[in-house]
Structure formats: structure tokens, C-alpha cells
């Protein structure tokens, strides 16, 4: 055991002095987590805003009010312009869409300010998702504007009077219906008159909708921030960095000759390999703890299941320590191992969720990801962070990681033994 620790300590010391490897093991994953976490973060990000043009073709105060309401939306970036410019910019792809507000539709009944304006959304038909989203935002703006008007007693009364006048001239409306509407507006007007006319404020039947927000903390199946997705990904990148660094160091020992010196020493080949595995395992666990601590302390990544997280980290460490051994025998020179190693590790990462989060993967890719230990590593970490995995749930990813680690180590050690003659 003592010799095992001596060899592991030597490898860790060498790793700590290799600035290039340290960058890939610690700095690069952290940068990945921060960069993509910041990009995908919903807090203060402008990337979700739709760039649209607003065209006021009616010139009415109601249309202007609606455009003002659209401009207040945090989901929209609105530029006012004439229809020609708006159409040109949308056609050129520089704006997502335009919203043109025209005269109220001339119908048989005129309700004055309550009469909905004519709204046209100009958008590329291929942008189905944005079209639906924009439609919702415009509808929201219209009703928000209407609500705002109704909660202002003075303005509401003015609109009621205009509406009453409009009803008088709406001859096409059946008399009975016209009378009911007039009664409704008069009743509303009377109600508004009960307010303190000076303040123009007071309780109103159209007061703000009171929406109560309740946090449900018992279920944690969704990430609370983008960092809860990017930190598990980054951790796996760190483990890939460790795997590469140690695989490279093993083949380096063989080409430089220190491997021979180790084999001449009074230690068995099994002890040498175990020493390497121990060093890479310690490095994996250290990197994992470091990144998780940074995520927890600086970015609020929840660690909802500490025991599960420990299981995940240990499983990942075993898995990638085993892969170290297998990758180190993919070639006989450092260059060949570097090429083959990065190739395999990158593919593992690509299909395993190291680049595209598992939760947004298409189904075919999710099926393919089952063949990558990166997927099971991320899944186990996410299970401990936000997926709410119990230890029973954790058994599948952890078991797969442990199995991959043991098989890869055995295969690598066997190939290495044969290569040593």
C-alpha cells in the first residue's frame, strides 16, 4: 500500500507541475461552465428578446398605447417604423417580425375604445415558434393596456361616454342588445362616479389581477439555473481532461523509459497499474469536488443529495480511471495516444451530453448517448443536483460507470501486459 501511495503521489505531483494539463483539467471546464451558464442563464440575458418592428397605421392613442405596452415587454425589443421599412427588415431577416396596428375593424357595432384594433403580424412562416410566442405577447399587451385603462376611473368614464355615444349611432345593433349594453356602461359610469374624483384612483372592479406565487420545493426535477446544467457538463470535461493527462503520462513513461525503471523496482506490475489508477482517481475526485464547490458557493448550484453526489463522483472517478488505462494503450507513442485519445473522448462527450444538455437532446441522440459514459456521469451528477434521484435511482448510472471503469481498466491492463512481453 505504501508503494502504491508513493507512485500515486508522484503522478499527482507531476500533474500539478504540468500547467498545460492543469488548464484542461481545471480551468477549461470552469470556463465552459461559466461561459455556457452565462449564455443560457435566464437572468438578465438579452438573447431571449425578439427583435420586432411596430407600425402604427391608425395613429390613434389606443394604438400608440398598445405599442407602448409592447415596448415594456422584457421579451421584446421594439422599433417603431413605417410598414415599408418593417417589411424590408423582416424580409432581410434582420427583424423577427413586425406588428402593424390599424384602424378598428368596421363592424356593425361600435364600442368605441373597447373595439379591438386591427393587428397584423408579419413573420416568416418558418418561424412557427416565434410566431406563436409573439402572438401571445401581443395579446398580453392588449389586455394589459385595457386593464390599465379600466383601473383609471377618469379615463374609464371618458371611454364609457364615448362608448355610449357610439352605441347611440350603432343602428345595426338590435335594440334590445343595445339597451343592455347601454345599461351596463351607465352602471359602470355610476360606479366610477362613486370614487373620489380628485384622486382618480381607488378600488375598481378591474383592479390588478392578484397572482400569488407559490414555490414548490418538494419536487426538484427541473434545474433552477443554467449553471445546474453546465457544472455537471463541466465536471465531465474536467474528468476527460484528467483521463487524457494520465493516459498521456502512462504512454510517456513507456516511451521515455521510466516505465522500465518502475518495472525493475521491487513492485509488481499490478501495483504499478494500481498506483496509476489511484492517482487518476484522486485527480478525478479532486477536480469534481473543486468544480462542485465553485458551483455551489459562487453560482448557487444546489447539492440536494450529498450522499448521491458522493456516489456519483466516486463512480465517475472509477469509470474515468479505468478509461485512462484503456486509452493509454491505444497507441505506442504519445502522439498516437493523444490523437486517438482526444478523438474518442470528444465523441464520448459529443454524444454523451458534454456539449448538448441531455434535457434538450432529441430522442435519437438521447438513445445514442446511452453508449457514452459521459451521459451516465452527467445523469448521476444531475440526479444528485436537481433531478431528485434517490440512491435507488442512482444505482443505474453509478453501476454503469463502475462497470465501464472495471472493464476498461482490465482490458487496458491486459493489453499493456502483453505489450510489455
Amino acid at each position, binding site marked *: 500500500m*505504501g*508503494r502504491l501511495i*508513493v*507512485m500515486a503521489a*508522484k503522478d499527482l*505531483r*507531476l500533474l500539478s*507541475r*504540468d500547467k498545460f494539463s492543469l488548464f484542461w483539467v481545471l480551468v477549461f471546464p470552469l470556463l465552459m461552465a461559466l461561459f455556457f451558464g452565462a449564455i443560457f442563464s435566464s437572468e438578465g440575458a438579452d438573447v431571449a428578446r425578439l427583435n420586432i418592428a411596430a407600425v402604427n397605421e391608425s395613429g390613434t392613442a389606443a394604438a400608440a398605447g398598445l405599442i407602448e405596452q409592447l415596448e415594456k415587454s422584457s421579451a421584446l425589443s421594439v422599433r417603431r417604423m413605417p410598414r415599408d421599412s418593417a417589411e424590408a427588415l423582416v424580409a432581410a431577416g434582420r427583424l423577427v417580425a413586425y406588428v402593424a396596428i390599424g384602424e378598428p375593424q368596421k363592424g356593425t357595432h361600435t364600442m368605441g375604445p373597447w373595439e379591438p384594433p386591427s393587428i397584423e403580424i408579419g413573420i416568416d412562416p418558418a418561424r412557427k415558434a416565434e410566431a406563436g410566442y409573439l402572438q401571445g405577447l401581443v395579446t398580453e399587451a392588449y389586455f394589459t393596456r385595457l386593464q390599465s385603462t379600466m383601473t383609471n376611473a377618469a379615463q374609464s368614464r371618458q371611454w364609457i361616454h364615448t362608448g355610449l355615444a357610439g352605441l347611440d349611432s350603432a343602428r345595426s345593433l338590435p335594440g334590445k342588445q343595445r339597451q343592455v349594453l347601454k345599461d351596463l356602461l351607465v352602471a359602470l359610469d355610476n360606479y366610477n362616479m362613486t370614487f373620489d374624483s380628485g384622486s382618480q384612483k381607488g378600488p375598481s372592479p378591474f383592479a390588478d389581477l392578484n397572482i400569488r406565487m407559490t414555490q414548490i420545493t418538494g419536487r426538484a426535477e427541473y434545474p433552477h439555473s443554467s449553471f445546474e446544467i453546465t457544472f455537471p457538463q463541466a465536471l465531465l470535461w474536467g474528468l476527460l481532461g484528467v483521463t487524457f493527462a494520465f493516459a498521456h503520462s502512462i504512454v510517456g513513461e513507456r516511451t*521515455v*523509459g*521510466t516505465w*522500465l*525503471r*518502475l*518495472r*525493475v*523496482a*521491487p*513492485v*509488481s506490475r499490478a501495483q504499478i497499474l494500481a498506483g496509476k489508477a489511484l492517482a487518476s482517481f484522486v485527480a478525478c475526485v479532486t477536480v469534481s469536488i473543486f468544480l462542485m464547490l465553485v458551483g455551489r458557493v459562487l453560482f448557487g448550484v444546489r447539492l440536494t443529495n450529498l450522499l448521491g453526489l458522493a456516489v456519483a463522483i466516486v463512480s465517475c472517478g472509477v469509470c474515468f480511471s479505468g478509461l485512462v488505462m484503456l486509452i493509454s494503450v491505444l497507441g505506442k507513442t504519445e502522439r498516437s495516444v493523444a490523437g486517438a485519445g482526444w478523438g474518442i473522448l470528444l465523441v464520448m462527450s459529443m454524444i454523451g451530453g458534454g456539449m448538448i444538455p441531455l434535457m434538450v437532446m432529441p430522442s435519437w441522440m438521447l438513445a445514442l448517448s446511452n453508449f457514452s459514459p459521459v451521459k451516465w456521469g452527467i445523469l448521476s451528477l444531475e440526479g444528485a443536483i436537481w433531478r431528485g434521484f434517490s440512491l435507488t435511482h442512482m444505482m443505474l448510472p453509478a453501476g454503469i460507470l463502475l462497470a465501464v471503469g472495471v472493464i476498461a481498466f482490465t482490458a487496458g491492463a491486459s493489453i499493456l501486459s502483453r505489450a*510489455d*512481453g
Partner: protein
Amino acid sequence: MIQADNLRKRYGALTAVDGISFEVRSGETFGLLGPNGAGKTTTLNLLVGTLTPDGGSVSINGETDPTNASVRQQIGYAPQAIALYGELTAEENLTFLGRLYGLSARQLRERARQALDLTGLSDRRQDRVRTFSGGMKRRLNLACALIHDPPVLLLDEPTVGVDPQSRNLIFDKIEWLRQQGRTIVYTTHYIEEAQRLCDRVAIMDHGRILALDTVGRLIEQHGGKSVIEAELQEAPADPAGLPGVIEGARFRLETDRPLEELARLAGLGLRFRTLRLDQADLEVVFLNLTGRRLRD
């Protein structure tokens, strides 16, 4: 001390070691001399158990399994490649290896100091090895083989690629180690190293031992005659009574014992204006045994 019996090792179609047998006696410096690819390094690897022989056996101090930890503990091995960790300091390299050999902290400090002193690297003990010159790395490579104070040293071409200063230092230290009673197996393709350092030399080629004996006997048996060429101060009055060929004042003699012959000629009253002695060496021995030069 070390016994190799009919050792064989093949790599596919290539026979690297082809049934060699030899014995290395306790306290002697035994040379394996041969060109690159002769099988010297493979032989060392078979001796130390890092390669498994296809046939034959090895015995070190009566122990037939060289992978046994007690056998490894007795062997110090300096590989031909500079087998050091460049990002560790000289002292860290030594202490790491020393720990593998089970040295205590006090022993480590003492042995590392001795090994560094012996190889002239004490003032660079805290420097990382990657900053060392080739000669310094070679010396540290040797120091690493000495860290656990082994009675047996296997030195595989320990002076390849070093500057003359480091080479001389390494020679001096190996001679000192020989005087201390270490058993040394020394591989080289340099004639002068084998002649200077080795008590006995096995000449290897194509995985076989062509001849094995002391340097003097090898030359005597396989080197051919030495040639004495001289210009005499005056032509002898009776050339027929003298050995060799005499043409006027020019003298030429082929002999197995050049020094004895020179003494005899001086006793006969010959006086030399110039004298040249072409004495056979291991290069000639190798040439005579294989039909080609050692460095062809």
C-alpha cells in the same frame, strides 16, 4: 552471482537473443560488447525479468525468478534511455525511486546525498531534471540505479550521447564502484569502454555470443598479430640474425607479443629513429570474428 543458461528471445521473425549462456562472477565487471541490435539490451531485460525468455533460464544469487522482489532489491538498473521524470527535481527523482525500494526517510536523505555527490550533481539537487544537460541526465540516470545501494549493477550503454567530461566522470565512478566490490554488467558498443572497464567481455552479434574472455585473451585468441614498424638509426650489420623484415634501415615485424619483442630487439642493440606499434584491439577481434567492423 549471475547465471544465464541458453537464453532465447524472439520478436516475431527476429531472434533477438539466440541461446546465450554466460556467468558473471561476484565482484567482476562483465561487458556485453556488440553493435546496435546485437541483443545486449534484450539480454539485460531477460536478466532482470522485464522480459520473459522464450527459452533458457536466469539465476541471480541462486534465485531463478528475477521478478522476485528480493532479487529486484539487489539490482540497480540504469536503462539505455534516460529514464527520469523531467518535472521532478534530481532529489525528487531519487527519493521517489528510493521509496519504491523501501528506504526509510533517514536512509533516503543519506543515500540521495551520496548518489548526488558520487555523480557530481549535489549543487543541482533542487533543480528540475528538464533543465539538465544530456551529460547531467546520464549521471543522474546512473545515480538512480545506485539509490538503494545494490550489490549488482546493470548498466545499459551508460555513456551514450554524453560529453567527454561526463563520460570520464562516469568511467571514474564505475571504476570506483568496481573497487567497492559491486558486480557490474556493462553493455556498450564502444571498444575503449570495454577495454578500460571490463574484467571479461562477451562479444555479441545477432543475438549470439561470439567470444567471451578477458580483453587480453580475446585479443590474443582472435586479434591476430601486432605489427612493429620502425626506422632504424643504422642498418644492422647482420640482418639475417634478426626477426622480421629489414630493407635498408626500415624494419617490420608481426608478432603475438609485441612488448616482449621490443625488449628483445633493444637487447640485441637495435636503435630506432621512429617506431610504430599497431597492436590488435577488440575492434580487430570483432572484425576477425564477424567480418565487419563494430560500427558498420
